[in-house]
């Protein structure tokens, strides 16, 4: 800023580098472990430099799962996670943008009632209604299915709010002009509102994709067959053994595969990610 300050600059960089190392250390150890053999890992201390079993381990988990425990291939789990994350992200965005459009651009009986009932869902996370929600899913016959994984999670108060806030900033002149030209609400929605909402949709998509990919409690409850596991659940099922009997080289390869897709989304779409995070939470 104003004063010349080599010492403070040095200190700042030192603290930041320490922070980056601290944050990256678990990732490094995980990566290294995923390239070693089981024997190398349990020979304490494990090496901190990658070994040469990278391809073997990843091929093993992707095609055949773990050796001793569950034999479900991780590639199936990755597909399940992808389906779940995409349906949650797209589903949430779709139903929220529709309801926000209804709430902002129409006057109808019960409008504020509906608005508030969506708002209240913020106060009911899955964790506080575990068993009844499970019963609803069981009654609908959607346990152990992709529909069951995604559908109960696609109502979204935050996305509805975000779109509502944004629609309020769209100039009234646009809607006036559209009406003058004889466009009905659906035409207006498709030709004006949707294109204008693109950046908000992109930002929300990043946040919701990560949210969907990382779901834990709900898939844990409703998936029983291995072919429906998401990758996060797959890892949990692999660590059932004890400390030294776990196949850590395979678990760590699976962990890398579980964290890589969302991490890449965050890093590659950093701009959207930051925008989505800061705006949805406000």
């Amino acid at each position, binding site marked *: 800023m104003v004063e010349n300050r080599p010492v403070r600059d040095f200190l700042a960089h030192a603290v930041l580098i320490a922070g980056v190392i601290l944050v990256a250390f678990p990732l490094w150890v995980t990566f290294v472990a995923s390239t070693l053999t089981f024997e190398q890992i349990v020979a304490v201390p494990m090496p901190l430099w990658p070994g040469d079993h990278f391809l073997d381990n990843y091929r093993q988990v992707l095609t055949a799962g773990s050796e001793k425990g569950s034999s479900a291939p991780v590639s199936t789990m990755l597909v399940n996670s992808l389906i779940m994350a995409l349906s949650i992200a797209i589903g949430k965005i779709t139903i929220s943008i529709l*309801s926000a459009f209804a709430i902002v651009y129409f006057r109808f009986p019960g409008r504020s009632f509906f608005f508030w009932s*969506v708002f209240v869902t913020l106060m009911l996370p899955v964790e506080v209604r575990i068993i009844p929600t499970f019963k609803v899913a069981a009654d609908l016959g959607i346990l152990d299915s992709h529909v069951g994984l995604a559908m109960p999670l696609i109502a979204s108060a935050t996305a509805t709010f975000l779109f509502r806030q944004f629609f309020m900033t769209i100039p009234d002149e646009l809607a006036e002009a559209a009406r003058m030209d004889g466009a009905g*609400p*659906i035409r207006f929605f498709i030709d004006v509102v949707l294109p204008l909402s693109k950046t908000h949709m992109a930002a929300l998509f990043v946040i919701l994709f990560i949210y969907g990919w990382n779901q834990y409690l709900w898939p844990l409850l409703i998936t029983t067959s291995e072919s429906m596991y998401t990758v996060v659940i797959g*890892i949990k099922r692999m660590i059932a053994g004890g400390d030294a009997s776990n196949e850590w080289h395979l678990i760590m390869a699976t962990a890398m595969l579980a964290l890589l897709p969302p991490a890449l989304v965050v890093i590659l779409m950093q701009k959207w990610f930051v925008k989505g995070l800061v705006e949805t939470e406000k």
Partner: protein
Amino acid sequence: MEKRVIFRSAWLPYVLLLPQITITVMFFFWPAAQAVYYSFQLQDAFGMSSQFVWFENYLTLFRDSHYLSSFRVTAFFSVLVATSGILISLVLATMADSVVRGALAYKTFLIWPYAVAPAVAGVLWAFIFAPSIGIVTYFLKKFGIDWNWIINSEQAMLLVVVASVWKQISYNFLFFLAGLQSIPKSLLEAAAIDGAGPFRRFWTIVFPLLSPTTFFLLVMNIIYSFFDTFGVIDATTEGGPGDATKILVYKVYYDGVKAADLGGSSAQSVILMAIVITLTVIQFRYIERRVQY
């Protein structure tokens, strides 16, 4: 705030709202109401019959030392997670805001843990700290520290706190950074010209101006440590050893799913709901206040 220009249709708005409302009613309101209903019921051991028992389940809970200890564990856990996460992130954000070179690189390398699922974060740290093969355990042993979180309560708590904080640093960091960048540089320059050193500037200008962000993060971190850390705990300690890391959410899950105590678990759910509602109201009160700024 209302739109001046609107469209007219007797049915379209309801059709647009239908999917959201259907899902909300089916998977939010109905289950929540069921939870309240079950919490007043006592089921026999086989789930064949149930009777209405008013507040019996709640009274049993508050007489149950396990439940009370779960409250203490949750309070301790969330205070540790929230304060240490906020402190570490504040230091990192302040430093990242002050450097010119490499700011973007630091940011990229600090925000990626946001993408890691809590359960995976738990597995990563559990591996590093694994009692017999963990790499950190090995170094701790060299310093004469006997590390075994599977049997030691304090170490188990420390493990879940570290994993939870590690995952949450990126979130706090981004909000602090955004907060710091919105502080007008002219204020800091004026203070510097008046002779205020870096620490003085931080305490008298930066910290007060950041207080809305800090408060927001405090609430968000408490919500995070109450609910989202379920994955961390289930993938590592599973509430143990004993009840040492059995936070409220984990106990609801454990009693309801593993021990099949429907009434007791539902009563716990209802108490948790009350806690979330309180936290959400606090959060929104605060946002309303900030709008007036």
